[in-house]
């Protein structure tokens, strides 16, 4: 029943999409409001369905077969606890983004390029979650890519964006082809590609292994696993901000869903080396992603790189879950998978929030380069407040939600000494160290992002004349920050609600989280570790309240405004502030030579020479340099070489025919 309603909602989204070109052509506020309003309602419904399916259990789950798609098997759709979890993630993001766009969308210069694809994008993501056969899954998957690609291309006048769109489309197609191969292997020669049939079939070890690798290539490229992440920081920022938020916060989670669905549900018993692969890739992704993020000057690109980092963290969690599952450690596996799922949820909240904040900044100032911003906290106080909340959450600081999932993941890592495989035992602590490093770097990254953008003094007139965003957009962000706080302070019910998923995926579940005492969460048992978000939050609130009360009541409340002190040498020029690049300099100096082939050309003129000193910093993306540049080089080389064949004389072409004929005749002669 619920599945039917969900499908109707998706159809509704597609219908909105189809009607959108006509609406976009109308006088603007109306069309924009109608499209986003409809999307808001439909995603809201889907969200409710997701919640009902997760909490209500079997009553709200189910199967449906439609006579479309691949002719022999039709299109299978189903809703189970796993898809319900991601349905919640996707549609929560959809609700927030649609709400936000009710305000933000009015600033869109070319609504005709956004409105038709936005609902389609939402529909595509939902369809991926509902699909229960390989073909529908792939169609939905690629439909999702294609509609988001169109959104990326909506600001197509900038060459950067066109390049981003190209790389994105290419990588998306690569991913889909890899998934196609994976499903080809799974479905076997029979061609029966329903998930139910795949699940019941037995897969030899080498097939499962190959499928895992293909899934890593396919789903990993969509999620943004290093080294397949290159498209992500290009494409996510290029889209309108609410779409960037959806792509970063939500679409990457759909990729994670695809990975979990295939690897945990369809493949059956994992092998331990899978975990090794995942842990290595995950750690690499987390650290490289965040290091790149620290170096970025483009606010939205910074956020996109931070998405790469978080995907790394999620994959570490998934890898751990696989490692535990292989060895039959159900409780530990459930802890790891819960941490990964929870992080998916959390990341979708705060990354969406941050992108929406970046959207406000973009609308308010027209700038994405943080070096040209500064002091926005005065002109856009509410955005600043909300963005700060997002920064705290993503930096994994208590009492917000980012901390909870990373804490759970660290707890899961602490269980790894019980693993029997040596490689894993060495690898897991290393992954833990990388995770901690990534988390710490993320802190730095967001201090820099918030500090340079919102604090200090305006570095350009655009920044000094910024204006606050629409109230409705701010409401959408408030909704997200509220959820961040809720998930951070009361994670217990969330974890409890995930238990059907964990028993489904890894045949184990975490201890039922007691509501009392102290509303704390307990990964394994009480004496091992516990954390109570609400209590920590309460403590912090109470003690800061006490501090303020005490000081204001018993001491001075007087305030005097004065010029800044700055050790006695305040300089009125905003250019004397610390810039984003200078903020990143120490980290660049420590990690740059290793990860970016850092080159610094500092040129100081001799004393007396009036020429300005120059400083040139070059950072190379090693993944690009060593993987993508050579590949595109080879392709172009081959194209150049083969292109000669376009300019031959007819005689030469005849010679080709002749040669083919003679060769084949030889073949036949020797055959006989």
């Amino acid at each position: 029943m619920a599945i039917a309603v969900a499908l109707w909602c998706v159809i509704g989204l597609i219908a909105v999409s189809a009607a959108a070109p006509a609406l976009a052509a109308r006088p603007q506020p109306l069309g924009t409001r109608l499209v986003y309003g409809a999307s808001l309602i439909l995603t809201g419904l889907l969200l409710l369905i997701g919640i009902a399916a997760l909490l209500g259990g079997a009553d709200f789950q189910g199967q449906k077969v439609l006579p479309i798609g691949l002719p022999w098997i039709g299109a299978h759709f189903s809703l189970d606890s796993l898809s319900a979890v991601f349905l919640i993630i996707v549609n929560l993001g959809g609700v927030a983004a649609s709400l936000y766009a009710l305000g933000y969308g009015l600033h869109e210069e070319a609504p005709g390029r956004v409105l038709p694809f936005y609902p389609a994008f939402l529909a595509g993501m939902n369809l991926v979650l509902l699909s229960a056969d390989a073909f529908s899954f792939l169609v939905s998957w690629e439909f999702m890519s294609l509609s988001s690609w169109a959104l990326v291309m909506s600001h197509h006048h900038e060459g950067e964006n066109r390049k981003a769109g190209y790389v994105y489309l290419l990588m998306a197609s690569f991913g889909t082809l890899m998934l196609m191969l994976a499903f080809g292997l799974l479905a076997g020669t029979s061609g029966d590609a329903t998930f139910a049939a795949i699940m019941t079939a037995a897969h030899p070890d080498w097939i499962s292994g190959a499928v895992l690798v293909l899934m890593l290539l396919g789903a990993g490229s969509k999620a943004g696993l290093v080294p397949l992440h290159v498209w992500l920081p290009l494409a996510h920022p290029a889209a309108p901000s609410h779409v960037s938020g959806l792509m970063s916060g939500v679409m990457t989670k759909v990729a994670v869903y695809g990975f979990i669905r295939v690897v945990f549900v369809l493949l059956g018993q994992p092998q331990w080396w899978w975990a090794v692969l995942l842990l290595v890739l995950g750690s690499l992704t987390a650290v490289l992603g965040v290091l790149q993020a620290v170096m970025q000057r483009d606010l939205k690109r910074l956020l996109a790189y931070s998405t790469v980092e978080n995907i790394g963290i999620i994959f570490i969690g998934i890898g751990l879950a696989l490692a535990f599952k292989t060895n039959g450690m159900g409780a530990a596996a459930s802890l790891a998978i819960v941490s990964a799922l929870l992080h998916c949820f959390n990341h979708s909240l705060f990354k969406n929030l941050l992108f929406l904040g970046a959207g406000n900044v973009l609308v308010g100032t027209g700038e994405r380069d943080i070096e040209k911003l500064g002091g926005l906290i005065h002109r856009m106080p509410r955005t600043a407040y909300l963005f700060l909340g997002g920064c705290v959450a993503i930096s994994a600081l208590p009492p917000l939600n980012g901390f909870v999932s990373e804490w759970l993941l660290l707890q899961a890592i602490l269980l790894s000494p019980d693993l029997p495989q040596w490689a894993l035992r060495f690898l897991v602590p290393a992954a833990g160290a990388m995770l901690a490093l990534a988390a710490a770097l993320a802190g730095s990254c967001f201090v820099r992002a918030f500090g340079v953008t919102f604090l200090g003094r305006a570095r350009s007139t655009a920044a000094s004349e910024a204006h606050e965003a629409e109230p409705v957009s701010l409401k959408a962000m408030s909704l997200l920050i509220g959820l961040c706080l809720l998930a951070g302070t009361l994670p217990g019910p969330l974890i409890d609600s995930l238990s059907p998923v964990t028993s489904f995926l890894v045949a184990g579940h975490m201890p039922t989280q007691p509501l009392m005492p102290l509303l704390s969460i307990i990964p394994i048992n009480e004496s091992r570790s516990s954390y109570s978000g609400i209590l920590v939050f309460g403590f912090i609130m109470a003690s800061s309240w006490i501090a303020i009360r005490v000081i204001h009541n018993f001491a001075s409340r007087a305030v005097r405004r004065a010029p800044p002190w700055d050790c006695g040498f305040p300089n009125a020029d905003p250019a004397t502030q610390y810039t984003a690049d200078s903020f990143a300099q120490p980290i660049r100096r420590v990690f740059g030579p290793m990860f970016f082939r850092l080159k610094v050309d500092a040129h100081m003129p001799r004393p007396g020479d009036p020429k300005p000193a120059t400083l040139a910093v070059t950072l190379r993306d090693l993944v690009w340099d060593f993987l993508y540049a050579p590949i595109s080089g080879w392709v172009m080389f081959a194209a150049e070489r083969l292109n000669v064949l376009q300019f031959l004389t007819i005689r030469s072409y005849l010679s080709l025919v002749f040669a083919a004929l003679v060769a084949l005749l030889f073949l036949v002669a020797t055959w006989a």
Partner: protein
Amino acid sequence: MQHFSLDAAHMFAGGMVLVSFMMLYQDRILGLINVFAAHAVVLTLSVSWQAYIQDAPHLYITAAIAFGLKAIGIPWALHRMVVRLGIHREIETVGGIGPTMLMGIVLVALSMVVMLPAAAEADPIAREDLALALSVILLGLLMMVTRQNAVSQIIGFMSLENGLILAATGAKGMPLVVEISVAFSVLVAFIVIGVFLFRIRERFDTVDTQALDDFREGRE
């Protein structure tokens, strides 16, 4: 009688291969045209012989077309054209006459190797004919590939076609042979007219290729 008819058919077909070799050897255009005319004459004889032994009068039409068009009409037209365009000089070859001849021998051997076992069940006339016809076809192709002059390439194509007619007439009782030979004659006529009309002088690739690059795809 059976034996004799087989020998005669064999002789004519072999004659065609021989003339094909002569064409490969020619390095003057006018000479080449003459040899081609001889090629067509041998074909005419061969087809007539087949018409006789197969008792298939319609093949005489084919023979007549071969004689009228290829032994007389086209050589005459080509003669005039060559003279008028002033290209009755040496033919540029690719790789020289000697290697081409050698290659030709290899091709003949190849067609024997391919066809003789393949057509083992066919009756002997057809078998020999087929093998020799294949040789003629391959030699014709070889000629097209190794000559840079348009006229000699046309001649190569026509000798290839002669090989086809040889094969078709050799296949006893094959229907549509006449139609096919007519269709081919139309094709050949088109080619000749094309060369003539579009003044494709030196080679098939007509005009100045540099100029074309502007319009077509030059290298980036």
